[in-house]
């Protein structure tokens, strides 16, 4: 299984001509053909022959200084516009939408020579944390087919977990990269808001949407972010902050670093099994010489409310364009979940309610940011759970709206702050993967990679493969 190897190893083997891109593409498709009718990680799969032809060209044109991802297969969440290739955002309204332009991140990956395999399944418009709220087939967790893979970038996490692709591009608004990474035992990064261009990412909630890499390891993520990050003159919210050579800083010791544990993140609502995984990880870092420090985010309890008021207000605005005038699908095609979110957001912005809801949420968001900055004065990074509970049974969250919202408890709050957060596999409970978040200062991705990389050097959680691969 070639795709089990790291991006660096694959690149080396390709350059040495020990393997070819054609081999990788063939492996990708054979996995997809074998497994995807059970997992449903893709909405649209690219024509195999087309991908093979591209691989042949890449094999011929590969140079010593070609990008590290040159000739590697990859997939991308269906939230990104891909020129001349169907893009649905998981919604039937865009069932036949063929974008005339490409998302900035997709262009960067393609320009570096990677080969698109397909577009990954997702909760429609990013509305959900389970990849059940897709208008296509609900996706299944490769560790237990009856359970959700997390979401909304569930399709990407499944494809990586089962080694259909070495990496994927996800999108995280309130946990959409971190949650499926945690539930499928993969590594994923929610970048600092503004680190990667959002151009061409179909908007869920513009002030929260972030474009991030998903892969098998932290090392892979560091290479990917080097390619993806940077100022884009076509995205006014992208940052000019210098892009580090993240991969070159890997391996630096973490002795003397302080890891903060926000006490509110370990209280009521957190599954004790997940808590235990986190405590073990804390001990691990302590052994490596890190200091552990309790910190506090007093307004954390309002995090979910603030997150949903802002995200849904923005989504009610962002989805206004799908009014059936120009995109084929009628408005009736919006799913129940999406209709609910549009209605709630419209309400929160309406005259007479905006002051009490949207504007108050914005004020609280500012307070939360200040509290977060305050906490980060006492520590270098924060360690936190990703999800409060293990992956639910498919259908469970749809029938329990409150539990559904609470899934974003630990991730949505971090999104409000705009901070970067790395989700890495940290253990198992009941045979299901459990991830943890390492959250940092804005534009502090380098530090997150350092910690995550060291953790993965010493642990093998991230190397474990789902049982479905043994079938």
């Amino acid at each position, binding site marked *: 299984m070639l795709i089990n190897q790291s991006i660096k190893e694959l690149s080396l083997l390709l350059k040495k001509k020990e393997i070819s891109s054609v081999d990788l593409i063939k492996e990708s498709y054979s996995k997809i053909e074998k497994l995807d009718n059970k997992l449903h990680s893709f909405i649209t799969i690219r024509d195999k022959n087309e991908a093979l032809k591209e691989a042949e060209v890449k094999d011929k044109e590969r140079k010593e200084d070609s990008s590290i991802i040159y000739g590697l297969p990859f997939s991308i969440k269906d939230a990104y*516009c891909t020129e001349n290739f169907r893009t649905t955002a998981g919604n039937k309204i865009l069932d036949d939408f063929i*974008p005339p332009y490409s998302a900035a991140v997709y262009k960067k990956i393609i320009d570096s020579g990677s080969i698109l395999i397909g577009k990954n399944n997702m909760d429609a418009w990013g509305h959900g944390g389970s990849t059940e709220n897709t208008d296509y087939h609900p996706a299944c967790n490769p560790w237990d087919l009856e359970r959700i893979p997390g979401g909304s970038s569930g399709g990407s996490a499944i494809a990586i977990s089962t080694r259909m692709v070495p990496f994927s591009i996800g999108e995280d608004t309130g946990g959409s990269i971190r949650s499926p990474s945690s539930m499928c035992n993969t590594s994923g990064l929610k970048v600092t808001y503004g680190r990667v261009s959002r151009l061409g990412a179909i908007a869920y909630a*513009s002030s929260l949407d972030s474009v991030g890499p998903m892969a098998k390891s932290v090392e892979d993520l560091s290479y990917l972010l080097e390619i993806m990050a940077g100022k884009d003159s076509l995205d006014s919210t992208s940052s000019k902050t210098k892009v580090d050579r993240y991969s070159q800083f890997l391996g630096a010791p973490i002795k003397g670093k302080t890891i903060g544990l926000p006490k509110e993140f370990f209280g009521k609502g957190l599954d004790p099994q997940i808590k235990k995984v986190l405590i073990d990880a804390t001990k691990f870092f302590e052994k490596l010489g890190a200091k552990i420090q309790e910190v506090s985010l007093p307004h954390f309890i309002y995090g979910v409310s603030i997150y949903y008021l802002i995200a849904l207000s923005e989504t009610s*605005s962002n*989805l206004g364009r799908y009014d059936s005038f120009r995109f084929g699908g009628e408005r009736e095609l919006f799913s129940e979940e999406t209709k609910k979110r549009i209605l709630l957001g419209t309400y929160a912005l309406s005259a007479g309610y905006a002051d009490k809801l949207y504007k108050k949420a914005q004020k609280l968001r500012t307070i939360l940011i200040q509290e977060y900055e305050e906490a980060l004065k006492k520590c270098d990074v924060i360690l936190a759970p990703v999800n409060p509970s293990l992956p639910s049974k498919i259908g469970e969250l749809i029938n329990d709206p409150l539990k559904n919202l609470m899934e974003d408890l630990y991730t949505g709050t971090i999104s409000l702050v705009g901070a970067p957060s790395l989700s890495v596999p940290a253990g198992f409970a009941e045979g299901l993967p459990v991830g943890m978040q390492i959250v940092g200062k804005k534009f502090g991705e380098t530090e997150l990679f350092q910690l995550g990389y060291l953790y993965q050097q010493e642990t093998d959680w991230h190397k474990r493969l789902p049982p479905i691969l043994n079938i």
Partner: protein
Amino acid sequence: MEIHAELKTLSKMFCGCKNDPFHAEKPNIYTCPVCLGLPGALPVANKKAIEWTVKLGLALGCKINLFSKFDRKHYFYPDLPKGYQISQYDLPFCYDGKVKTSFGPVGITRVHLEEDTGKLIHQKINGRDVSLIDFNRSSVPLVEIVSEPEIYSSAQAKEYSKKLRQIIRYLDISDCDMEKGGMRLEANISLQDQRSKIKDQKLELPNYKVELKNINSFRYLERGIEYEIERQTEILNEGKTPVQETRGFNAEKNMTFTQRIKEGAADYRYFPDPDLPPIRFNEKWMGEIKSSEPELIDLVFTRWEKDYKVDRKITELLFETAAESKKLDEIFINLTKQKLSVDKFVNAVANKKLMIDLFVNNIEEIVNTFKKSVAVDEITDEQLRVFIDKVLLVNQKAVADFKSGKTNVMNFLAGMVMREAKKKVEFGRLSKLITEILKS
């Protein structure tokens, strides 16, 4: 009044598309994912348009918000591709200005920047009524200038609107083409008995207003308002309140008509556009804008009236932009140096008596042409009197007419004298001599 003007920046407000909707060869050729509102598209604000809006604000005596932002204004209409218009809500770039009119000053509430919509075209295709959308105009920068409710007559509304067009054109930031919709006028009209409503010197507004929209000429604006005043007066005199609505103006019938009755206040659900970071003007940038601001057009006219004794009504006809006024300034200085009358010059130009183009020909050509047209030949009064006598003798009828009060025959007589003398003589001097002789 609410006045919209499309700015003539090279590119659109939030994308790089060409901003030239009126000269596009075909519909929908100046479009891209941003101005079509495609999924994933992001706006990037046009710096020039922001700069021009601030310049306009300064020319209207406005204060400038050093911290500002763009907001989303939501409503559904087929010509609005995103389901919202990017506009400015509570922090417009400019606020609290003033425009002088001969009826008194009119306060400017605010000047803000937004994007224009696409254009709907309703036509029959293969016997079917269809509505087509042209997005060439979508996201063209649009400034909106809102006045205080301090306009008290149709004539004042017209003067105010014309004055705004003059100021905008002077800044050279918009063509203000009314016919094509490059400048659009909206009047909000309501009436009340002033004597009963004046409290603490402050006028309280009536509890209704009628919006007169989509007016594409100053004349129609004036006529529309007049019609509304009559219509509303009648309703009020019956003790009723006019319906709050949007009305249009039918020029053929010379009357306004109902377009849309608003059921309650529209809720646009404004909120700051998260795709566009807030804007902060720093002192340095403001300093640059202020120093590039041309002399206010009113000051130009006042200065000319003082220095050259020229009538504003005439000089207004001669130019539009600040660059053009600067050239006129140079011409005036040149004329003065050569002891030529600026007043006569502007009259001659306004009456199209000079074969020159003020903004094509160079100053030397212009001054020389004028000089030639007013040149007079050397001739003494004595010599002239001989010719006058001769002319009067052979034009007895004209002399009789003059004596019976038809003074306009003087032009004829003076012309005859000059022809006889084969000399060019200043008319004033000649008519004075002729009158003296006739009266003697």
